[in-house]
């Protein structure tokens, strides 16, 4: 009678069925109602529209059985602060993301489908970069966009570039130095491939400067934006495809990324939020390192050259939520402190508000701005010309809302090594 073959398999489809089950749901047993998550939640601090992480997480989850009745949970920005601060180990943010996936399974707004298509956006915008830049900066067009797909007219949009990272990497002159330290795989992510091309270039140049050979396999999207918009099927397919891409460069190689949020997706979110249990993901997830984490590891091992040129200036640094959720501390702060005469000031703010695609949405734009306001003020007061932050959408948000140019910390390392 046993029918082994129709047992549930962990496929893209099972991603949604997983929602509300197993790991995260079991962790709600550890909630003692201490309310620490509520005190740290950046969204509940600024709006009554959101009922708060404890409410929509461990509490509401006990009342869920398939059907979705609490649509206000969509005000959760998925920043993950609640999980990070929970002293009992409750996966609050994961529970919320899963509940959102169940909710969106039926009625997903077209906007949430569009903004989560990061590769598509990049591909569409690159050939027409000047036009895209103009259109995204153009008020009447943005107003139309807001009306049509409910992306707020003032929300930050990715800066379109004339050349993708891949085409730069393929067409540049071969590096003159011979690699002495072995081989690394570089994962640039969608933003790093299409919009934040400079950050990707500088990362590769720093790694090559340190003596590594850097391989860049053809690679797709990690699916994070789809995941945070509750599209688990699509996200699962994307992340597994990406794992195949990254594994194609060779076994056991360390993978480096300057996309903090995509790294988090590979390290833990795909597994913990969507329940993807796949050897390929486990393999990539344990081999991947955030760029600054990797540099700090080198330093701790006494292998990072510290012949940095002095940079006499003071810059604000903001550690993004998705970096903090990786449990690696704030490696950029420590590495940047090796640069002589550079003063880096930690923002010590919870969140910039954008949380991936959250702050783009018309109904959430004001909330995201309110969340980020203390940070924007801090940034402006610390240095009106330059700020540092590890993840792309957070940089766009800080830059757009504070008017301060915001770059990845690798830019400082790149400059301090005298690489241009």
């Amino acid at each position: 009678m046993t029918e082994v073959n129709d047992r549930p398999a962990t496929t893209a489809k099972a991603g949604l069925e997983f929602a509300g089950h197993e790991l995260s749901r079991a962790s709600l047993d550890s909630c003692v109602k201490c309310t620490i998550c509520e005190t740290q939640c950046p969204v509940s601090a600024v709006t009554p529209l959101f009922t708060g992480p404890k409410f929509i997480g461990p509490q509401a989850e006990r009342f869920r059985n398939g059907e979705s009745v609490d649509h206000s949970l969509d005000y959760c920005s998925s920043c993950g602060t609640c999980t990070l601060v929970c002293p009992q180990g409750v996966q609050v943010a994961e529970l919320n993301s899963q509940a959102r996936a169940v909710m969106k399974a039926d009625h997903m707004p077209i906007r949430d489908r569009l903004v989560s298509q990061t590769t598509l956006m990049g591909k569409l915008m690159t050939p027409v970069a000047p036009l895209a830049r103009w259109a995204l900066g153009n008020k009447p067009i943005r107003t139309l966009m807001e009306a049509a797909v409910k992306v707020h007219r003032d929300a930050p949009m990715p800066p379109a570039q004339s050349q993708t990272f891949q085409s730069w990497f393929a067409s540049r002159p071969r590096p003159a130095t011979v690699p002495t330290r072995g081989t690394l795989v570089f994962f640039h992510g969608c933003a790093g491939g299409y919009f934040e091309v400079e950050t990707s270039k500088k990362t590769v140049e720093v790694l090559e400067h340190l003596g590594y050979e850097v391989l860049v396999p053809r690679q797709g999207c990690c699916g994070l934006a789809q995941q945070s918009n509750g599209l688990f099927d699509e996200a699962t397919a994307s992340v597994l495809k990406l794992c195949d891409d990254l594994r194609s460069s060779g076994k056991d190689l360390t993978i480096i990324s300057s996309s903090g949020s995509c790294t988090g997706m590979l390290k833990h979110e795909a597994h913990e939020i969507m329940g993807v249990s796949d050897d390929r993901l486990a393999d990539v997830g344990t081999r991947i390192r955030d760029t600054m984490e990797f540099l700090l590891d080198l330093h701790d091992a006494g292998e990072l050259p510290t012949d940095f040129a002095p940079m006499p200036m003071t810059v604000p640094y903001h550690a993004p939520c998705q970096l903090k959720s990786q449990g690696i501390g704030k490696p950029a702060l420590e590495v940047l402190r090796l640069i002589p005469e550079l003063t880096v000031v930690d923002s010590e703010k919870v969140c910039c508000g954008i949380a991936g695609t959250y702050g783009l949405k018309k109904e959430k734009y004001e909330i995201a701005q309110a969340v980020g306001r203390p940070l924007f003020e801090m940034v402006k007061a610390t240095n009106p010309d330059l700020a540092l932050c590890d993840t792309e959408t957070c940089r766009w948000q800080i830059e757009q809302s504070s008017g301060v140019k915001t770059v990845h910390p690798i830019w400082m390392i790149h400059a301090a090594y005298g690489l241009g």
Partner: protein
Amino acid sequence: MRKLAVDVVVIGGGSTGAGVVRDVAMRGYSTVLVERADLGQGTTGRFHGLLHSGGRYVVSDPLSATECAQENAILSRIQAGAIETTGGYFVCCPGDDPAFADKFLAGAAATGVPAREVSVGEALRNEPRLNPGITRAIEVQDGTVDGWQLVWGAANSARHYGAEILTYHAVTKIDTADGAVTAVHCTDLKRGEDVVIETGFVLNCGGPWAGQIAAMAGAHPVDVVPGRGIMIAMNHRLVNRVVNRCIYPADGDILVPVHTVSIIGTTDVKVDDPDHLAIEPDEVQQMLDAGEVLIPGFRNSRALHAWAGARPLIKDNRVAAADTRHMSRGMAVIDHTERDGLDGMLTIGGGKLTTYRLMAEHIVDAMCDKLGEKRACRTAEEDMPPSGAGKNYVVTHRLEEREHDRFTEQIICECELMSRKMLTDALAAQPNGSFDDLRRQLRLGMGPCQGGFCSMRATGIALETGHIDIERATALLRLFLKNRWLGLWPILYGDQVRQTALDNWIFAGTLDVEHLPPPDPSVRPEPEIEKKTPVAAVMEAGVRS
């Protein structure tokens, strides 16, 4: 002293008594129900929460199976708000004889219990935490039921037909004259007043206390054998359907999702006194082991509360064969005329909550026979407003309600999503209520924190809104905490220890609840069944010394 006069007095406000008083009233008799505590505070509030599909009895007790199947369908319709039609599975676990499932299916077909074998894959997809080693799965129409909602529904319907419901009234004596019942004496426990009810008929629905009540009328001892069973509520719904082991009925073979929790049970141990039900450590372990068979990892999930109830089984060799007309298996109506030479009294025992309406029909039919009257039973036809007709309960209800009033309502009990308005409405409706009375209606303190946060909030609100004074506030809070603790001691392991430690710091530390002034003497502990474990007794002694 107060005096009343009615055609029929119903003693006991459990499911049986509530069903009986409704039936009596619907047949046009004037009637009063007397209950020594709150409604549903005996066995009915300490049961497993299962609305049987009949599946459990298809092999062992075919008649009960058919009755359950029929009553399940009726109750799901007429008391929709009290019942969640979860559906259920009977599963063969590793080591269970898979051939029993064939007997089961044959039995189900013969008894009219809807049952259908489904693939193991389907069962595991629907209930992903189920033991992946199950070899067969049969789908049945088990449901889950809130015993209190069920009883109140019946009581309200009875009131609608003119019945009076007297809670916190303990029967102390039954007068007889010339071999017939003449009056029932009781004490109004809240007012400390005696009440005498003149009547020609008593229906004894005392459950496990039925023997004590029969004795008050001078009847020969009715041999009630209370069968104690323990149950443990786990923090959340590990399953969304009732899951039974597909074996001959045994201990710990059912996991029932009721409201936000899932309840594992139960045991069956003969005890002498239904007022003192211990929760033995070995039975707790037995339940956790049983849970582990159904749901691997069960022991790692959080237990919230344990309790025990006593099955009101009547073993009576005085029952004449002629009486079996009114007996179906598992339930017994005792006619005291022939047995004790006493007219005007019937005692009912046994049965199940699922068949409470049918039990009532039987005993009221028997009464009509004795009175020589023909009055038809209509209880199966009529919905019980307000929670009766309409949609069945589903677990998402409260979350949906809070979604709608989230901008205007404070949440007082966070675990069970009880709003401030729910609390103040209930306080206004019963100014003399204890917090346990409120708990049974609102689920106050029944979630993971077990009153740790909500009980002090509820106390504060009751005080602030003038429903109670400060002395009563202290007493009510302490009593509530004490009662919660009774169900916590037996399961203090794992995650619940952290919660109770935190709760204890709050109450014993920050609020120093143990050194508040002595309680208001008007707050007497209710005749709450004590569920004290040896450990609890020791710990309490330790606290006091």
